[in-house]
């Protein structure tokens, strides 16, 4: 096992990784920006090291700063968390060159899965269904021609994309021609890569994903499926496991296919395979997220598997502590992401937290780095807390979540708690009839 792990992240995920390190008896060092100097993870870690100014580009996204911090603090490994450098093949490569361990998949796998066009091809070869789509399209004429072949509406996506960024839906050729240059520019800004490809837009679909863990000896397990259909502009807000309308044979078959695909690409570590499930129950591979995900906690609640600890153990060369037959999910779990945004307009709401009361009680877990006096910085993601609730069944999980949110009080910044409560009592959600367009429509109808 490692002696010291450098955590190249901030907020709740940094706290989550510190917790895993502590349980494993591993020293934790948090690499932080100047504006996070008073943040909770900086105080909780065994050591903290400032790596740059507030803008992420010069701190959390700087490979030299992160690696240098690992070297001067005597770390053996770097845990990148999610976002920032978590899927950076450059960081993974640099770690290998400098004798550090990158807690994540090998750089070759990151490159393969990071290129969404390549990932689609690899997954198709591994036996997964993929959404009808194209290779990278370079010009408007080609785009319009191939779009006519696959049919509208069409989703324009960044080849180097992921995490829901840089995607737009177009209904016809004129809209596609207009959207393409903008999408290319967006992709260039967000990912430093302007390549674009097209996919059929599947309306009325659910977002289903499989959490996997794979060690370096070829042992692979999946922790079942999560339903993350409640999204606003492709950013998840409420997640649950298991998915309400999956389960049974279809779910087990996809689980087996995912496990096979994980082996086929030589995946090592924790990761997620995302699918769209259409109203006929067909599941199409969308993308693989080669990192720990925000919503990993609900899978931990129902399976008892500590994803972050397993991730660190795997990176240290240990065998996965679980076999597929040992993974027996119990009950149902839901996560609500409380963000510092206005509940109606969803405008970001940076500021100082003046009141913070977090829920507890049976079946409730809260992952957060928020504290009274803490600042919600305009520089970073507005996530304040992840509230998770588990119950014997979906009904109890929902009741617990509603109860937990009603016992939560955050003041000083606007929060999405009222919107989350509205979602949790919406008849479509209660009936398990939500799709990926549910939340955007709910917000649009209200406006």
């Amino acid at each position: 096992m490692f002696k010291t792990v450098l955590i190249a992240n901030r907020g709740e995920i940094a706290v989550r990784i510190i917790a895993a390190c502590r349980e494993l008896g591993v020293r934790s060092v948090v690499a932080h920006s100047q504006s996070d100097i008073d943040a909770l993870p900086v105080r909780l870690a065994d050591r903290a090291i400032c790596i740059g100014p507030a803008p992420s580009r010069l701190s959390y996204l700087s490979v030299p700063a992160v690696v240098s911090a690992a070297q001067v603090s005597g770390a053996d490994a770097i845990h990148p968390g999610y976002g920032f450098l978590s899927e950076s093949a450059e960081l993974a490569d640099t770690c290998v060159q400098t004798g550090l361990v990158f807690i994540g998949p090998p750089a070759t796998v990151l490159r393969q899965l990071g290129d969404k066009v390549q990932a689609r091809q690899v997954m198709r070869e591994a036996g997964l269904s993929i959404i009808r789509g194209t290779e990278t399209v370079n010009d408007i004429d080609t785009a319009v021609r191939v779009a006519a072949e696959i049919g509208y509406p069409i989703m324009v996506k960044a080849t180097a994309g992921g995490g829901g960024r840089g995607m737009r839906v177009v209904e016809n050729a004129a809209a596609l021609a207009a959207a393409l240059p903008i999408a290319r520019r967006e992709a260039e800004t967000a990912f430093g890569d302007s390549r674009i490809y097209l996919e059929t837009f599947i309306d009325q679909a659910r977002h289903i994903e499989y959490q996997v863990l794979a060690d370096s000896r070829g042992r692979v397990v999946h922790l079942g499926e999560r339903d993350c259909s409640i999204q606003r502009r492709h950013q998840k807000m409420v997640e649950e496991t298991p998915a309400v309308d999956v389960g049974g044979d279809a779910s087990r078959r996809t689980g087996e296919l995912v496990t096979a695909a994980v082996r086929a690409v030589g995946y090592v570590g924790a990761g997620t395979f995302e699918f769209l499930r259409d109203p006929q129950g067909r599941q199409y591979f969308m993308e693989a997220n080669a990192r720990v995900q925000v919503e990993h906690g609900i899978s931990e609640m129902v399976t008892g598997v500590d994803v972050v600890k397993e991730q660190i153990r795997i990176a240290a060369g240990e065998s996965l502590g679980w076999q597929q037959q040992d993974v027996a999910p119990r009950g149902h779990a839901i996560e609500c992401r409380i963000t510092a945004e206005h509940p109606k307009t969803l405008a970001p709401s940076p500021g100082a937290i003046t009141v913070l009361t977090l829920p507890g009680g049976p079946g409730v877990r809260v992952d957060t780095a928020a504290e009274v006096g803490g600042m919600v910085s305009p520089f970073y993601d507005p996530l304040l807390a992840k509230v998770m609730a588990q119950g014997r069944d979906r009904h109890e999980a929902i009741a617990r979540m509603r109860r937990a949110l009603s016992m939560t009080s955050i003041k000083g910044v606007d929060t999405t708690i009222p919107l989350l409560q509205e979602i949790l009592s919406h008849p479509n959600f209660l009936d398990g009839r939500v799709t990926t367009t549910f939340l955007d429509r709910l917000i649009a109808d209200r406006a």
Partner: protein
Amino acid sequence: MDFTDVESLVPRIAALMREHDLAEIELEGDGLRVRLRREARVGHSDSQSLQVTRGGSDNTATDVSVVVVSAPVVGTFYRSAEPTATPFVEVGDRVRRGDVLCIIEAMKQMNDITSHYAGQVVAIQAENGEAVEFGAQLFAIKIDG
């Protein structure tokens, strides 16, 4: 706070400012008024300028300006080009704009840290071979003029 020793005053005030995240501070005592302002300049070393106004015997104030040079990158601080070489600068040395003050090694890359000012080194605030974080105070330089 002891206002008689300007050299030890600078690092102490600078530390105070960092601790409380202050952009500017003004202190007065012992016939001395001290104003310290921090300017974070992205991509450059964060420099701090200090203005000290000393009430002289003839009651005319003299201006002394001291800047603090801080680490622009996280890494290992070296005072000389190689272990056996003499340090780039010592306390009391005069430096010109562009003179190398130290090296910070980050990922096997030796980053020369140069002075943006001409003046006299009044304090060296990091140890040779020490790990320094971004923003760590390295030198105090009393600016000419």
